[in-house]
């Protein structure tokens, strides 16, 4: 074991933001390597400032280092200038704790939170000094594994990654440690042995033990090719979030990163049932953390880190049963005697939520963000984002009247059944929000931020067509026309070409691996960074492999067609997803199953689980489809839109 630090150090005077490569964060551990310890290098395939705050990686980092039979260090993708300097100096990918070469570890474990990082995964395997293709690696090489939401369609990376992990990582990393530990103790002669042993772990998918269907409806589907390969791999689910109060020692970086604050996860999973949302579908059921534990994690976290900002994280934090209690405790000084601000990402859209947001905005009220996602009630029924006109305008009115001056609204375009009038309605809705704002402020701002819909595996929309970049550009042009001349309304949109490539990686099958490899060889790393993104590289690679954007990303899938992720299960029944899609196409909405009868999606029942919520009544406000008269939901309430004098 040799520290590479003496050769890394001279490079750091010449690269941008060198603090990204030094480690030494508060909470960082410096594990001792030795026999009997399975060593993990946890790799985030994006820059340090994006990857460091990742809570999933931090949780596994602590859990592994607590075990007597394991240790974990971390690595992030070096930025282009550093990578160039490393390759010139012959320095491989290294860990931040002991500055060891990646090949000194038994496992390289990648966190896959976004599809556009796939070329970085290949680049980092290569920078580690390994063959990028799994089949070309030797028994003495580290095993390369990956987890995270993107693992629910593993096929685009199937040729490069030895094993994928589905679902919650807390328990499965222990199982993997034990299996790899005994393989290493047995002399680790055959790589195939390790792969078969890994495949025996629940929630672990080993692509080398499967083949891809070659033609007809089976094309792109994946089928077992070994007795060691289960027909279906079901995700892992921890039943009690309260048993896992991690991270206990959140990393405090020495340099600037995104989300630089204390993060406390208040629940995992979401059953709002937004049909486009992969995160909500694959993390079911809802498992809340006990309110007292949340408070204790905030208190000890603030004391230990010195942060003055805490984010209560989840997919919809206003739905947390103990939200009011928690906010009151923090604001009332129960979690520490110094002033603290609270961030609530993923707000629900209603006046109640605004009241909570106003309460915690101690000082500055700049902007508040809502995600109505659709411009018409019909579209919101299609995607099951059940925000009534009354709730939306009520939330906006409450926000502006409580002193907020800037409202940001998120929308999706390109959804199934969408017509031009649905798109134009986004501008109309945003314009009405500006009008509401004018009652309270001279120059209110409404930012409408528009993203292109990408159908995601394991969602009801997994069969749907994706708009081409040209179609999305047409819709953006409609929106620009419709919002022209509206003072205070500003329109922003996501690059349609990046959405197209995200679609490739989202629904691609095993054949996409060769495309990813070509893009990487052409220098296409950091594709999620707009200044580095290059659609031309992807189109060239696709055509060189005899594929097209239309075939891999855009086209709708048939009901009887094999999907590349059919053998990977988030617990959701295929017929539930299909019938939910039929409901969507008929604009039929379903309510949140936390508080209403079960739709038998499969996430709870098959795993013998139940939702873990402290309260079995819907949250105050009762918005977003719960306990509301949905028949009247598209009526625009007069009190919000009448003349100012009519109030």
């Amino acid at each position, binding site marked *: 074991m040799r520290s590479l*630090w003496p050769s890394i150090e001279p490079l750091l005077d010449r690269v941008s933001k060198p*603090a990204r*490569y*030094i480690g*030494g964060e508060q909470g960082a551990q410096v594990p001792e390597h030795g026999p009997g310890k399975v060593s993990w290098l946890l790799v985030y395939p994006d820059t340090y400032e994006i990857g460091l705050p990742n809570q999933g990686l931090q949780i596994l980092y602590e859990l592994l280092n607590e075990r007597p039979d394991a240790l974990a260090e971390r690595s992030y993708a070096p930025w282009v200038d550093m990578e160039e300097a490393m390759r010139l100096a012959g320095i491989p990918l290294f860990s931040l704790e002991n500055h060891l070469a990646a090949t000194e570890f038994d496992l390289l474990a990648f966190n896959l939170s976004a599809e556009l990082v796939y070329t970085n995964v290949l680049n980092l395997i290569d920078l580690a000094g390994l063959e990028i293709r799994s089949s070309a690696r030797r028994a003495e090489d580290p095993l390369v594994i990956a987890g995270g939401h993107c693992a629910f369609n593993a096929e685009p990376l199937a040729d490069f990654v030895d094993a994928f992990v589905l679902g919650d990582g807390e328990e499965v990393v222990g199982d993997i440690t034990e299996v790899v530990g005994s393989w290493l103790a047995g002399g680790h002669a055959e790589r195939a042995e390790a792969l078969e042993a890994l495949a025996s772990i629940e929630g672990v998918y080993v692509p080398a033990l499967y083949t891809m269907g070659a033609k007809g409806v089976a094309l792109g589907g994946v089928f077992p090719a070994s007795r060691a390969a289960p027909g279906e791999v079901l995700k892992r689910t921890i039943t009690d979030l309260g048993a896992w109060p991690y991270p206990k020692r959140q990393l405090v970086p020495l*340099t600037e990163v995104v989300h630089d604050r204390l993060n406390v996860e208040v629940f995992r999973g979401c059953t709002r049932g937004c049909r486009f949302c992969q995160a909500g579908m694959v993390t079911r059921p809802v498992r809340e953390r006990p309110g007292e534990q949340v408070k204790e994690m905030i208190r000890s976290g603030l004391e230990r880190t*010195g942060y003055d900002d805490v984010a209560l994280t989840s997919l919809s934090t206003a739905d947390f049963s103990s939200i009011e209690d928690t906010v009151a405790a923090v604001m009332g000084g129960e979690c520490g005697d*110094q002033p603290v601000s609270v961030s609530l990402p993923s707000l629900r859209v209603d006046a109640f939520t605004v009241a909570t947001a106003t309460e915690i905005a101690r000082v*500055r009220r700049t902007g508040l963000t809502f995600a109505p996602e659709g411009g018409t009630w019909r579209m919101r029924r299609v995607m099951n984002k059940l925000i009534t006109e009354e709730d939306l305008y009520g939330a906006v009115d409450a926000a502006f009247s409580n002193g907020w001056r800037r409202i940001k609204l998120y929308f999706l375009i390109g959804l199934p059944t969408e017509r031009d009038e649905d798109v134009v309605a986004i501008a109309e809705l945003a314009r009405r929000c500006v009008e509401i704002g004018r009652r309270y402020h001279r120059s209110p701002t409404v930012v409408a931020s528009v993203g292109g819909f990408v159908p995601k595996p394991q969602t009801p929309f997994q069969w749907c067509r994706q708009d081409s970049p040209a179609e999305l550009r047409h819709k953006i042009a409609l929106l620009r026309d419709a919002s022209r001349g509206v003072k205070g309304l500003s329109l922003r949109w996501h690059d349609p070409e990046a959405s197209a490539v995200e679609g490739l990686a989202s629904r691609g099958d095993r054949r996409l691996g060769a495309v990813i490899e070509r893009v990487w060889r052409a220098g296409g790393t950091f594709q999620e960074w707009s200044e580095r993104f290059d659609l031309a590289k992807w189109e060239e690679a696709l055509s060189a492999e005899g594929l097209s954007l239309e075939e891999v990303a855009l086209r709708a899938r048939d009901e009887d067609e094999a999907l590349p992720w059919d053998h990977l299960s988030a617990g959701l029944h295929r017929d539930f997803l299909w019938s939910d899609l039929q409901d969507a196409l008929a604009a039929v909405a379903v309510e949140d199953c936390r508080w209403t009868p079960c739709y038998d999606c499969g996430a709870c029942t098959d795993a013998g689980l139940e939702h873990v919520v402290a309260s079995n009544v819907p949250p105050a406000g009762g918005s977003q489809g719960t306990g509301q008269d949905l028949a009247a939901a598209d009526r625009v309430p007069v009190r919000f839109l009448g003349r100012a004098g009519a109030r």
Partner: protein
Amino acid sequence: MSTADRLRIRFSKLGKVRFTSHRDVARMWERALRRTGLPVATSMGFNPRPLLAFGLALPTGAESLAEYLDVTLGATDRRWNDPVALGLLATSLSEALPEGIDVVAAATISGSVDSLQQEVTLCSWDLEVRGVTASELARRVEQLLAAPSVSVQRERKGRTFDDDLRPAVRSLSLSQPPEPGSGDAPTWFRAELATRPRGVRPRELAEALGTDVVLTRARRTQQWIERDGTRWEPLNVEHRVGAGIAPHAVERAS
């Protein structure tokens, strides 16, 4: 504001942490002060921040034995006139700060003392260079000192222009007399560089000594306040007793 007492803290920045920026260090201090619970005054307005005033920015990558920070206290606190209490505070701050950043001295100063930015006019540096032999470096140092002006190219707002750095170089000498045959071993030299009217960065000085001179380590060893022909270390402005320099700090982080 002017009646509130301030604490002036001297700290070191050594080892890996030297690759963090001036802004990074400011954030480390904000968190460390909150962890120790020292009552710090905050600014007024929409977004209250703790009232901390740092001296001259240290270039990212440079080390220092003499960084300074003025902390405006939330209230006048007699406690900090006691050297023992100050020593304990210094220890707990060092513990709350990342490895390589250590408090080496602290003292109270009154609200009327001018800011570090205004007062500090000179810095002492230890610089390590490679690329030329020690005797060659000694020759170039003499050349530079003998020159009436030394032109360097500077960039500001996208435009390059020539600037004379000679007036800012107060002294320059090798740390040890050159030994013959030392080959391409690194050479340490000392420099005293003025901060006004236009400060000189160690990298610019190395460039002025020749394009083949590579600066491999820079360590600020002192900052000076000059008054009436005398130099003062910023912490001794009022001759208050500080916590004393912790000699282990240098070894621990280097």
